[in-house]
């Protein structure tokens, strides 16, 4: 047990403590344990002898110094012998650099109030920031309407490729799977009533009007929305946005508007693809399960799926494109100074866009119901 401190008791009250071994960070645990077990505070006169110390670093010196100070605070008589100049300098260095931490923030019991206040303050800032962002977007949009020459078609095409073309496989896969699911579920129920042919109405209407716009928008929001946020956010971290501003390019015009135009063009087309593939998959499964031939199925589809329903589905594309682009870009511009914020706002962007798409879809359903189409 006496690896670092060796006691030499003179009498009941005084003790000589010989410090030995390496007083360094790696052995600090054991040193602290030894100090605690020795109960030096039972003596009134304590003499430390440092002649046996093999090595002392800042941590070791700190522990020794706090030991001495602790004893002195308890009105003990402490003396230190055989301390080399080097070690003395070290103790002095610690003396000079030991400052009390300002613990006001650390132990604040009302910290939760502070958090609530901070939260609301941030929320208010968010709203103001969104309004100014939205204003800038509207301004840029109308400016571009007046001068369509300023639309950056190269960027628009690049975005169409990225958000449109490359999204086709995953959108088609999701659509065909949803078609299969609907027709499996529908077939099981409808065959009980002998109403096999109505499977076409079910598939056609539900896919064209609801499923394919909603699923496609959610896929695109997760796929492209998150990438918009991350791209804009990392550009901010790199000072690229500020650089664009000083060059005289509006970041909204260069980064947001092309994405907006691309999304308005792509989303209806993707929904169209999803319609075809989804209905195709559904009808194929109906053919397999219910023994309906393709001629009957197509004929029934023509009479059950009205052009209005189909157009409503397609029209949801440009409507959903608005929250997807604007929210994800808005969240991207929210990133200020750390990579942690980038992750936080990317998550937020995906959650917010999907949430808004679903809310909009519900609103549209109610509106269409009221006006009767």
């Amino acid at each position: 047990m006496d690896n670092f401190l060796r006691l030499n008791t003179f009498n009941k009250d005084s003790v000589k403590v010989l410090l030995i071994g390496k007083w360094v960070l790696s052995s600090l645990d054991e040193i602290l344990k030894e100090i605690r077990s020795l109960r030096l505070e039972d003596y009134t006169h304590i003499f430390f002898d440092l002649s046996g110390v093999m090595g002392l670093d800042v941590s070791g010196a700190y522990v020794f110094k706090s030991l001495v100070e602790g004893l002195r605070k308890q009105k003990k008589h402490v003396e230190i012998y055989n301390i080399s100049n080097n070690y003395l300098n070290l103790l002095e260095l610690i003396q000079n650099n030991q400052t009390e931490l300002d613990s006001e923030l650390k132990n604040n019991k009302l910290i939760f109030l502070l958090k609530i206040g901070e939260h609301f303050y941030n929320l208010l800032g968010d709203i103001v920031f969104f309004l100014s962002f939205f204003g800038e977007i509207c301004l840029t949009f109308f400016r571009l309407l007046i001068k369509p020459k300023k639309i950056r078609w190269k960027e628009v095409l690049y975005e169409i490729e990225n958000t449109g073309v490359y999204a086709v496989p995953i959108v088609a896969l999701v659509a065909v799977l949803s078609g299969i699911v609907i027709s499996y579920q529908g077939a099981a129920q409808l065959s009980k009533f002998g109403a096999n042919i109505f499977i076409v109405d079910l598939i056609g209407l539900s896919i064209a009007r609801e499923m394919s716009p909603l699923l496609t928008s959610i896929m695109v929001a997760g796929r492209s929305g998150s990438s918009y946020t991350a791209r804009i956010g990392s550009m901010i971290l790199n000072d690229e946005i500020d650089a664009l501003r000083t060059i005289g390019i509006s970041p909204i015009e260069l980064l947001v508007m092309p994405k907006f135009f691309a999304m308005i063009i792509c989303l209806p087309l993707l929904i169209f693809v999803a319609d075809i593939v989804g209905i195709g998959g559904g009808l194929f499964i109906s053919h397999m399960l219910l023994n309906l031939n393709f001629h009957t199925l197509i004929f029934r589809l023509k009479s059950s799926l009205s052009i209005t329903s189909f157009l409503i589905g397609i029209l949801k594309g440009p409507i959903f494109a608005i929250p997807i682009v604007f929210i994800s870009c808005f969240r991207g511009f929210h990133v200020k100074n750390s990579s942690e914020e980038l992750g936080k706002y990317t998550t937020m962007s995906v959650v917010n866009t999907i949430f808004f798409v679903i809310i909009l879809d519900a609103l549209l359903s109610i509106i269409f119901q009221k006006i009767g189409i």
Partner: protein
Amino acid sequence: MNRIIEVKDLSTIIKGKKIHNNLNLHVNKGEIYAIVGGSGSGKTVLLREMILLMKPTSGSINILGVDISKTNHNEISKINKKIGVLFQTGGLISSLNVIQNVSLPLKENTNLPKDIIDDLCVIKLSLANFPMDSVYLYPSELSGGMVKRASLARALIMDPEILFLDEPTSGLDPVSSVFFNNTIKKLRDLLGITIILITHDLLTINSIVDRMLVILNGEKLAEGTVLEVSKTDHPWIKNYFHAGGI
């Protein structure tokens, strides 16, 4: 064990490009050793090999008596505890505030009680001249000089035997960089740490460095005391020392 680091016949080839060609150098215990060289000359790769982040293609690196090209995981973590590194851009973890950043190595590697860890952090931050009213700030809220100081405090927290500094004064104004140089020198004098630094700063070279190495395109041009190196007859070295002496 006077030679604390010894590099022998070090060659590094990355993606077919030769970074180092038969490099030999040694660092003595307790000295401030500078690695100087043009951009892209392999300084940072050399440093990364010395701090066990990269493996050289051939040759050996001996640190604290251990050949690190032939070590296992256990020994690597032992050496890691004996070295401190200040990265060029600080390398502070952005999700932790300054005091959490500095205390991270202690929390991971020791079982010390929290109040002792806090006190040790304060001492090291103060040694690095970090202003005490800013210890709860996050890295993104710090200025460049404060990032360097916080990062120096973190490099010092484990009381390392060797301290590696990657361009410690880059991005600092001349006054701060003189201050930073003095801090480094003070640490060496008081704690006896060996310090290896990559630098372009003539001010640092002339004021605190004991010995230095000049590399160009992966080849050693010169090694020795600053005076010896400055007398070497090579155009690059002449230009280098002339750049600051107008």
